[in-house]
C-alpha cells in the first residue's frame, strides 16, 4: 500500500466575486470531513484556505485554489497572476493591508489574512513576484496539536 496516495481538488476562483467567495474552501472542508480528518484540523485548514481564497478575490483578480490530501497531511496551494507583493515581510505583519475601501466596507481587508495563514498552518511558504503573481503553500499535519 502506497503511503503517497493522495486525493486532489482544484478550483478556479474569479476576482472580485464576493457572492461566491468561500465556495472553494467550503468544498475543500467537506472533502476533508468525508476523508475523516480530525475536526479541529479541518477547521484550521478551512480557515487558512478561506483567508487565501479571499486574498485572491480581493487583490489578485482571480486565481486557483488547490488541495491535496495525503494520509498524514494536507497541502493547500493558492496561486494567482495578480500584482504580486512588493514587501512580503511587511505583508506578514498583523494589521498591514492594501485592500481598497470598498473591500474594507465589506468587512474584509483588516490586514489579518497572511498572519492568520501563518498561525493556522504547520508550514507556510510564500513566493511572490511583482506584476507576475503570488503562490502560497500551506501544509497542515493531521496529527498536530490544536492551535
Amino acid at each position, binding site marked *: 500500500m502506497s503511503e503517497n*496516495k493522495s486525493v486532489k481538488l482544484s478550483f478556479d476562483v474569479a476576482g472580485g466575486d464576493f457572492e461566491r467567495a468561500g465556495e472553494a474552501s467550503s468544498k475543500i472542508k467537506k472533502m476533508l*470531513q*468525508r476523508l475523516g*480528518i480530525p*475536526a479541529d484540523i*479541518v477547521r484550521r485548514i478551512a*480557515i487558512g484556505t*478561506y483567508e487565501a481564497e479571499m486574498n485572491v478575490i480581493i487583490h489578485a483578480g482571480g486565481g486557483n485554489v488547490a488541495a491535496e490530501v495525503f494520509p498524514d497531511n494536507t497541502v493547500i496551494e493558492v496561486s494567482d497572476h495578480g500584482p504580486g507583493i512588493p514587501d512580503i515581510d511587511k505583508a506578514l505583519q498583523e494589521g498591514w493591508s492594501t485592500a481598497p475601501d470598498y473591500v474594507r466596507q465589506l468587512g474584509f481587508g483588516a490586514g489579518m489574512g497572511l498572519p492568520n495563514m501563518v498561525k493556522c498552518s504547520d508550514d507556510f511558504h510564500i513566493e511572490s513576484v511583482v506584476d507576475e503573481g503570488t503562490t502560497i503553500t500551506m501544509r497542515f499535519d493531521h496529527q498536530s496539536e490544536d492551535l
Partner: protein
Amino acid sequence: MAQTKYYHSVELQEDRCQGCVACVKLCPTEAIRVRNGKAEILSDRCIDCGACAAGCPYHAFNVSMDALEELSGYAYNIVLPAPSLYAQFPDSISREDIWQGLGNLGFDEVFDVSLASDYIACEIENYVKSYTGGRKPLISSTCPAVMRLIQVKFPELIKQVVPVLAPVEAAAIYVRREAAERRNLPADLIGVWFISPCPSKETNIRQSVDVQQTQLSGSFNMSEVYGLLLKNLGGNDTSLRVTTGSSYGMEWGAYGGEIRSAGLENALAVHGIDNVYDMLEQISMNKMPQLDYVECNACQGGCIGGLLAAENKFVAESNLRRRINKLRQEEPAGREEAMAAVMHLDHFPASPAYRKKLVPRPMMQLDDDIMEAMKKFERMEEVLCSLPGLDCGACGAPSCQGLAEDIVQGKAHEIDCIFKLRASVHKIAQGMLELAKQLPMSQEPAAVNNLEEDK
C-alpha cells in the same frame, strides 16, 4: 464506525408515507432516504429536530411520548410547565387558572421551568463574563436539537458550548430531591413530568446530551395537554403547591429570551434550524471572533415554534410578550432585582456537578481507514460527474452528491437515478434494434408471408 444505538422520538408511520421526498429535502443532516417507496430515517444522522414531521404533507411522522395515565404509577406527581406552555394561552387566562387546570389533570405540584431558567441564566452570565482566552463566540447549550447538530456536523465547535444544564433538567434534579425530603417519600415514587413543545426534548429524556442522569420521569405532547387543559382550566384547590420564576425566566419561551435574561449585550439570537446551521458554519470559519455569545434555537421563533406547540408561533409570541409585561409590573424593577426576588431555593443544582461532556458524533466520513476513505472519495467524485446534477430527489437521496455517497457505500445503485435509468433503457432498446437487424430469420420466408396474410 460508531456503533452507538440512538434513540429517536420521531418515527415514521409507514402506512401514511407516500414516498414523496419532501422530508428528504427538508432534513438538515441529510438523514432521510426514500427506499422502496417509503422514507427511512438514518439513525446515526438524525438529530430529532422534527423538520421532517413539520414539513410532511401526509403527516406520516409520529412523535412517541408518554401518556397522562402514567401518573397513576407514582405516589406524587410534579409538573414542570415551560414558558412555551403559558404562551399557548392568551393573557386573559391567568397563570392561576392554568395551574389549577394542571391540578385537575392529576398533578399534585407545579414547578415552573422559568425559575430554573433564572438560575441557568446567572450561570451563563457568569461563565460568559469570566471567559478569557478561548475561542469565541460561546454557544448556548439549551436546545438539544442544536447540541445534536453540533455533534454530527460541527464537532469542532464543542469546546465553545457553554457547559450548563438545560433549565428543565436542572429543575427536575432540584424538585425530585426536595419533594422526596419534604414528603418523606422514596425519590422513585415521585413522578417529575415535562410538557414538551418538541421531539428533541423528549429524546433528551431517553438519551441525554447534557445531563448525566435525567431526573425527569417522562414528557407529554404539548398540543395534547393543551387540548385537555382548555377543558379543565380554573378551580380553587388550595393544596396545589406552586413554585414560579421571574419574568426574565419566562422570556426563555421565545428567541432572544436567554440573552436578555443573562444580561448579555454583545450577543446574537439565532432561530430556525437552517439559520442555526448557517450561523454555526460562520462560527466554524472564525468569522465572528469579537462576538461573546450566540443563542441557538432549532425552531423558528424559539420553543414556542416547536412542532408540538398547539398555537401559531406568532400568536404564541404575542401571548408570551403580554404575560411577561404583566409579570414585570408585579415584580421588583430591574433584571437582577427581579431574578433575585425568586431565587431563594436551598441548594439549587449547579451545572458542573451534573453535566455530561458533549461528544462528537461525526457522520460525514466515508470510512474509518483513511486509505479506504480516499478510494471511496475518488469513486464518489467520478460517480458525481456522471450524474445530472439536478438534485431532483427522485432517487430518494437529497442530492446527486448524496446519491453518489450512497452508491460508493453500497447502499444505492446508479440506476436509482431516473436519468441514468432512462439512458440505460434507451441503450438496451437501441441494442435490441441493432440485434434485430443483424439476426438471420429462423423461419422459412414462405411461413412468414403466410402469417402476414392471416392478418
